[in-house]
C-alpha cells in the first residue's frame, strides 16, 4: 500500500468503519448471510471491469488487486476452477480467437479517446449459426470435454483463501455453468430466439450438448475442491430490461430440468447455489426456487420488477440475494449522494434476517466516476452494519 498522505486520507473512512464494525472473518460473515443469519455487517462482493480496478488501485494507493480487495473489505474471493490443459485456443487471420466451444471473439474498443475508454471481447463468429438440421449440429466437432482440464490444484487454490475469505467457485463469463448463454454464443442470439419457436429440436440438441458437458464437469470440480469451495455460482441471462426474455412456459419447457440438475449436483457436494441473471426475471423466480436455487445474483434495480424491497418481501423466506446496485444509471450518472441513498435503500430493504450480500448488478463499468465507486464502498460499510 502506498503511504503518502493523500492515500491515507482517502482510505480513512473505510478503515474507520471496518475497525468499528467488523467482528468476524469474511468467511464466517458470508456463511451466516447465506444461511439466513445476521452477521456483523452485510458481506460485500465485487464485480469490476479491469479499467475500473486499475483506477481504484491508483485512487487508494494499492499496489495490486488483492491489496485493493483486502482494503475495501470485499469478503468473496473468486475461484475459477481447474486449469485448462486442452489444445491452445486458435487465433485466426482476422484477429479473432476461438474459445472452449469454438466460438470466436474479437476485442472491440468503446469510448475511444475518452475517459471511459475500454475494451470488451465480443462474439464475432458463432459456429452453429447457419446450420439447419440436428444432423449438422451433431456433426460439430468442437464440443468441449471435461478431460481438457487439470483439477489437481483446485483444492489448494481454494484453501489459499481460508480461513479468512469466502470462496466462490464460478467459471468466467465464457465458461460459466449455464444453458441459454452458451447456446446463444454457439448459435447466435438472433437465431436462438428464432429457434426457440421455429426449431425446438435444434434448441434441445444444442442444450443437451451443453448440459452434458456441465453435469460431467462440475462434479469433477467439486470433488477436486475437497471441501474448500464455499459456494457455487452459475449464470445465464434470462431477463430483459422489462420482463424475462422468454415466457415462463418456454423456460419450463427447455431449461427447467437442467437448472434443477445443476442445483442438485452442487447440493450433493454441500454447496449452495448462486445464480446470475441480468434483467427482469420476476416471473421466473418461483420456478428458480422450486428447482433448487439458493441465491439470486444481480437484482438489476432498473429492470422492471426487480425492486429489492419487493423481492425480499415476496421471496426472502426461500431465496437470498446478491446485488441490487445500479451500474446502468446511479453509479455512472448519479451523484455521490444518489449512490449512498441506493446503498441505504438496499440495506434497509434486504439485510434483515441475513440472506443478503452487497453487490453491483454487474461489473462496475469504465464510465463510472471514481468518486461514486468510493461512495459505494464507504456506504457499504456505513449502512451494512447490523
Amino acid at each position: 500500500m502506498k503511504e503518502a498522505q493523500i492515500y491515507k486520507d482517502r482510505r480513512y473512512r473505510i478503515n474507520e468503519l471496518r475497525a468499528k464494525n467488523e467482528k468476524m472473518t469474511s468467511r464466517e460473515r458470508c456463511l451466516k448471510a447465506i444461511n439466513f443469519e445476521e452477521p456483523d455487517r452485510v458481506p460485500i462482493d465485487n464485480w469490476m471491469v479491469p479499467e475500473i480496478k486499475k483506477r481504484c488501485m491508483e485512487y487508494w494507493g494499492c499496489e495490486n488487486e488483492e491489496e485493493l480487495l483486502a482494503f475495501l473489505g470485499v469478503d468473496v474471493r473468486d475461484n475459477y476452477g481447474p486449469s485448462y490443459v486442452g489444445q491452445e485456443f486458435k487465433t485466426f487471420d482476422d484477429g479473432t480467437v476461438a474459445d472452449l466451444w469454438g466460438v470466436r471473439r474479437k476485442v472491440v474498443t468503446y469510448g475511444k479517446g475518452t475517459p471511459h475508454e475500454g475494451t470488451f471481447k465480443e462474439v464475432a463468429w458463432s459456429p452453429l449459426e447457419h446450420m439447419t438440421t440436428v444432423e449438422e449440429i451433431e456433426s460439430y466437432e468442437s464440443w468441449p470435454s471435461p478431460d481438457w482440464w487439470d483439477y489437481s490444484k483446485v483444492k489448494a487454490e481454494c484453501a489459499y483463501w481460508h480461513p479468512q475469505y469466502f470462496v466462490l467457485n464460478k467459471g468466467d463469463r465464457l465458461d460459466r455453468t449455464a444453458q441459454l448463454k452458451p447456446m446463444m454464443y454457439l448459435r447466435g442470439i438472433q437465431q436462438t430466439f428464432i429457434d426457440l419457436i421455429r426449431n425446438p429440436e435444434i434448441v434441445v440438441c444444442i442444450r443437451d450438448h451443453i448440459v452434458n458437458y456441465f453435469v460431467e464437469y462440475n462434479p469433477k470440480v467439486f470433488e477436486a475442491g475437497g471441501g474448500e469451495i464455499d459456494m457455487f455460482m452459475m449464470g445465464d441471462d434470462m431477463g430483459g430490461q422489462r420482463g424475462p426474455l422468454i415466457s415462463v412456459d418456454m423456460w419450463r419447457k427447455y431449461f427447467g430440468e437442467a437448472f434443477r440438475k445443476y442445483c442438485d449436483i452442487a447440493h450433493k457436494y454441500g454447496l449452495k447455489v448462486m445464480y446470475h441473471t441480468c434483467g427482469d426475471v420476476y416471473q421466473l423466480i418461483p420456478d428458480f426456487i422450486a428447482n433448487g436455487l439458493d441465491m439470486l445474483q444481480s437484482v438489476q434495480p432498473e429492470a422492471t420488477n426487480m425492486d429489492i424491497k419487493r423481492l425480499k418481501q415476496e421471496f426472502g423466506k426461500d431465496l437470498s440475494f446478491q446485488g441490487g446496485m445500479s451500474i446502468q444509471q446511479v453509479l455512472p450518472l448519479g451523484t455521490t449522494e444518489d449512490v449512498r441513498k441506493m446503498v441505504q435503500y438496499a440495506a434497509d430493504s434486504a439485510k434483515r434476517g441475513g440472506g443478503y450480500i452487497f453487490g453491483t448488478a454487474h461489473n462496475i463499468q469504465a464510465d463510472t466516476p471514481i468518486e461514486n465507486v468510493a461512495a459505494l464502498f464507504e456506504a457499504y460499510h456505513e449502512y451494512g452494519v447490523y
Partner: protein
Amino acid sequence: MSTLKTLSEYVEQGKGKEARALAQKLLGENISADRIVQEGLIAGLDAIGERYSRFEAFVPELMVAGMAAQEVLEVLRPKMTHGTLHKTSGTVVLGTVEGDVHDVGKNIVAMMLEGGGFKVIDLGVDVPVAKFLKEVKYQEADILALSALYSPTRLAMKETIQALKDEGIRDKVKVMVGGAPIDQAFADLIGADGYAPDAPQAVKLAKNLIG
C-alpha cells in the same frame, strides 16, 4: 376483409410461410399493397406489440412476427413502383452506436418499422458518428434511430446529436434512442426527441415524430 385479418394473425403468430403465401394470393386478387401493409402487417405487428406489453409475448415471439412481416414485404416489393413501397410513412436511418456490436433489439425495431410502412436504412453495428451523419444527409432521413445495449457506449449518442448540431442539420431530423441502458432521463439529458423501451413502442414513437 377476413383474409386480411387472417394475414394479420399469421404475422402476429410469426407464421412466415403462411403469411407469405396469403400475401401472394391477396396480391393476385388485386388487393393493394397499401391495404396489405395496413390491415395485414401493421395490424399484426400492433397485435403482437399489445401482447408484448401485457407480458403475453416475449422476445422470441416479437422476433418471428418481425420476420413474418419481412417475408410479406419481400412479396410486396416487386409489385411496387421503383422497387420500394411507393408510399412510405417516412425514412429512418438506424444503427447501433460506435463501440457497440449488439443488434438483436435494433433488428427487431428495423423489422417492425418496415412492417409499419417506413423505409429503413439499417447501418448495422459499431457505426461511427460520421457515417450516421452522411446517411442522414444522403437519405434525407426523417428520423435517426440510435441503439446501444452496453451502457458505456451510449455516450456516443450524445456525440451524434452534437455532430448533427455542428453540421447545422439538427432541426432537419428527429432523433430517437433505445436500448437496455437508455431511459427517458437519458434521452432528455442528451437532447433526443424521443425514447422507446421496446420495438412496438418504437414504431408508435416514429409515427408520432413524423406527425
